[in-house]
């Protein structure tokens, strides 16, 4: 699924949170959305998910203009995972996955839930209440929920934040494996530069609501004369003028 964003602007009263950003994500590729806190990443993702109405600009998903009348059709092909949102804590993992499978119109619910449970090693805590899980377990359940409808376009907001290196690596490995075997386009917002280097085909850097640079990791590192993406990120984030 291809995602195209055209001159997207979001103003909150006098504040411009996102200032005319344009980019494209080719089908089955992963785009990294980087930038310091408050640079407009979450607002941009919110607009692409239909949670925030843009002040102006357009979003196309597979050349279909994302507007209220085709919101349901497009949302059923997308999904989202973030450590900052959770699933109902009092429901068991199984109940949550079943509810979301139904909400996304999954036809063979039992089969799909079992598939996700097996793939993400959820068996041991399937009947536990979601609120009683550890961060690593919660993260795997959130990932299972985000893939329950076999999305064609997936938004991941810091998918490995607050995870220990082992679980973090498991999640990254799983995303890589899943992408290899399924048709999936990913937009990944992350502060973990190693993760971005490993998962993303291309990245865009945002600052003060604008895209200040874009390219592959190697291209950006080379362009800014740094040794790795972390240093490149710091250079861009700390520079006073636009690059």
């Amino acid at each position, binding site marked *: 699924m291809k995602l195209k964003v055209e001159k997207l602007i*979001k103003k*909150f009263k006098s504040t411009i*949170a996102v200032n005319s950003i344009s980019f494209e994500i080719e089908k089955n590729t992963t785009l990294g959305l980087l930038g310091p806190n408050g640079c407009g990443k*979450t*607002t941009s993702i*919110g607009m692409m*998910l*239909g*949670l*925030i*109405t843009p002040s102006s600009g357009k979003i196309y998903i597979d050349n279909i203009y994302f507007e209220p009348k085709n*919101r*349901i*059709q497009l*949302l*059923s092909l*997308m*999904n*989202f995972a*973030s450590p*900052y*949102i*959770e*699933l*109902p*804590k*009092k*429901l*068991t993992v199984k*109940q949550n996955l*079943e*509810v*979301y499978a*139904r*909400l*996304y*119109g999954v036809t063979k619910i039992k089969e799909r839930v079992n598939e996700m449970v097996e793939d993400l090693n959820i068996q041991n805590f399937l009947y536990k*209440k979601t*609120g009683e899980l550890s961060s690593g377990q919660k993260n795997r359940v959130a990932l299972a*929920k985000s893939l329950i409808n076999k999305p064609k376009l997936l938004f991941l907001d810091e998918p490995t934040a607050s995870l220990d290196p082992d679980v973090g690596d498991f999640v990254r490995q799983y995303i890589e494996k899943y992408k290899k075997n399924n048709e999936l386009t990913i937009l990944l917002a992350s502060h973990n530069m190693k993760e971005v280097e490993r998962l993303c085909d291309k990245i865009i850097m945002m600052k003060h609501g604008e895209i200040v640079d874009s390219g592959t990791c190697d291209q950006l590192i080379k362009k800014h004369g740094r040794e790795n993406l972390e240093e490149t990120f710091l250079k861009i984030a700390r520079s006073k003028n636009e690059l």
Partner: protein
Amino acid sequence: MNFNKIFALSLRHVYLIKGSFPRILDLIYWPTIQIFLWGFISKFFTLNSSYFENTVGIILSAAILYDFLFRSSISYNMMFLEEIWSRNFTNLFIAPIKISEIITALTITAIFRTLIGLIPAALLAIPLFGVSIFKIGIPLILLLITLYIFGVTLGLLVTSGLIRFGPSFENIAWASLFFLAPLGCIYYPIDILPEWLRIIAKLLPLVHIFEEMRNILIHDILNYYQIFKAIIISLIYFIFGIVIFYLSYEGAKNRGTLINMGE
């Protein structure tokens, strides 16, 4: 509308209630307390006043019906608040569900929560005070439907506020019904109100419902015109509530408050 999705939204709340005994107890506890409280107050009035021969019956029936209204509204709000408290709000609004499906699911599920509270309380009143609201007969169903529509409407308006203003609007959710109680003429006839307030009170379906309840219980008179008037007024408010909900949703999307709404 997709009934499987409506079922899924309801199922989430059924799982929640089913899995928590304290929640079930809480649903039953307050209506039962109301019955005890008003039962004893009315018994005292009966012994010390000659105003109504059937004070206990009138006041207790009013308390049960008012509690039904209260529970239906609170149930609606609670289900919405659960989504905010559990930080599930964003997940819900990025799922391919229509707003009409959310409203329908909340409306259907609220009735279960409300009935879990009402039925034990109404049954308890029979052996304890010899009062049965079922004596109202068939019109009781119409009165309950009207109260339910109005209760859900209040729920819709409060949830619209939650979407618009965020969790800080929570306190209004609890207080909303107390604003209307004095004007609803629940425990007294409308004639008690000053004339200018009667005009406002008549704009609420509550006055017509509780007047009709008293007519049935005291005078054994049934006026379907009053009941249908109450239903029509409730439906008008309900449509108004839906419009406000849609406006709040669009407003929240403009302000960006749907993302990361939580405790």
